[in-house]
């Protein structure tokens, strides 16, 4: 039986507690940088990627759209692949809102 490898990303610890901006040119902790440096390699090399949203100061919609919607928009992965591989964790009730936003951006991306 094949073992499923779960790769965990804790945004506030592995990336930044203050993410923001869409493109790398916008700022240091942009959605594009998060997608290209962490998310994309993790999805490409693992069966499952678990992302924990808690602990940050918040998330701008541009950051979330570029990081997650951008995966599909730019043709890196299909919606099905993302649905199968990506798991979003929002331990704190306050972060549920961002989880819903990510799901929305993935659905709307084309």
């Amino acid at each position: 039986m094949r073992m499923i490898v779960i790769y965990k990303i804790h945004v506030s610890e592995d990336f930044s507690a203050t993410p923001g901006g869409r493109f790398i040119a916008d700022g240091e902790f942009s959605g594009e940088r998060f997608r290209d440096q962490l998310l994309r390699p993790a999805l490409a090399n693992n069966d499952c990627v678990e992302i924990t949203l808690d602990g940050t100061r918040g998330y701008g919609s541009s950051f979330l759209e570029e990081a997650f919607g951008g995966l599909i928009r730019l043709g890196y992965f299909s919606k099905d692949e993302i649905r199968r591989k990506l798991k979003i964790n929002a331990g704190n009730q306050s972060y549920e809102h961002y989880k819903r936003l990510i799901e929305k951006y993935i659905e709307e991306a084309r």
Partner: protein
Amino acid sequence: MKKLSCRHKKFLTRKSFSAPIHKKIRYIKRKCGYNNINRHSAEQLEALSRKYGAKKHLPEVMCFDSNYEETARFLQGLREDVRVGVKAKKRAKATREYYHTNVDRLGYVDFSTANYISPTAALVLAAEYHRSKLLLGLKSYVVDMKKWNREVYSMLRDVGFLELLRVQNIEQKSQELNFDINVIKFMSGKKVEGDKIDELISLIRNQFSIKEDDSFLYLYDSVVEAMTNVIHHAYPIGEKYEIPIVKDRWWMTGFCLPDKSYFGLTFYDQGVSIPGSLPRSRMWEHIRRFLLTISGASSKGGDADDGDMIMAAMQSSRSRTREAGRGNGLVQMKDLIDTVGGGRLRILSRRGEYVYVYGGEENAVTRNVSVGGTLIEWEIWPRPQ
């Protein structure tokens, strides 16, 4: 100080002509006594002001809520000074003349006439002086500070205006003074800087002892989107700016009422404004359709319907660039008010003013004078603890 004759000055200028420009300026300044400009008395400054430019007075009430026209006109006057200064500087550079950047060039502003200044107006005032400093290297001086209204002094000190002007011996904040509103020192930047928002939010929380809740989470989201909008839309490349700008620059501050009935954050940029950027966008036709539903008429062009333009931009769920996934920024700013369960969003952009109050009430008007960019003010009414 030895007084130099005109002939001698010309001789010195000619003599130093081949020297590097900074050495030449320093030499002439030293010989002509310009280095002593710091020691000018109020009377001397007034005399210089009469010679070089009109003296301006701060409006008695400097506030965008209760005295919009006068406040905006006064700030427009400051911007005009920057325009003139930058033009003179360019001319001086082209002709290799010495350009002295001191206050005598532009006249000075009398601050003793003001009785009240709001945190938002104080931020815009600081931003204007900051722009002058960045573009002209303008050295501004403060005179007759003892004549200033105590409340105005406190507000300008707290917002960081006096520090910007490098005023020495700034009075410490007094605990006894309990003014209408407390403010935090302004922050400025040219990128999306989440750490600065975090710092400002932490200062609001700690200084005003406000309990941490979801409001701060969503406030961060809104401000980070405002910063992103500045980088993407506020200062387009190729735009012909009437007043010289410092590209991608934004300013922000936080404020709170002593009784903690509300706190807020103000964000300002000196860009082309929301209505100014819409007609060039690919979604202009979409916005025009919104305008038709709001005002029953198509856009008149210019800035005559700026209020409606902001309203249309807010109501539109899609972005101005029409690329997939764009256009949630303005919506997120508005959503914050409903999510936190009380508050007000106010956007002043060019001549337009848009206000959204918790519960769904929204209004838009077009003012007579431009605010000189885009000013966003979030006012949060914390839930009873």
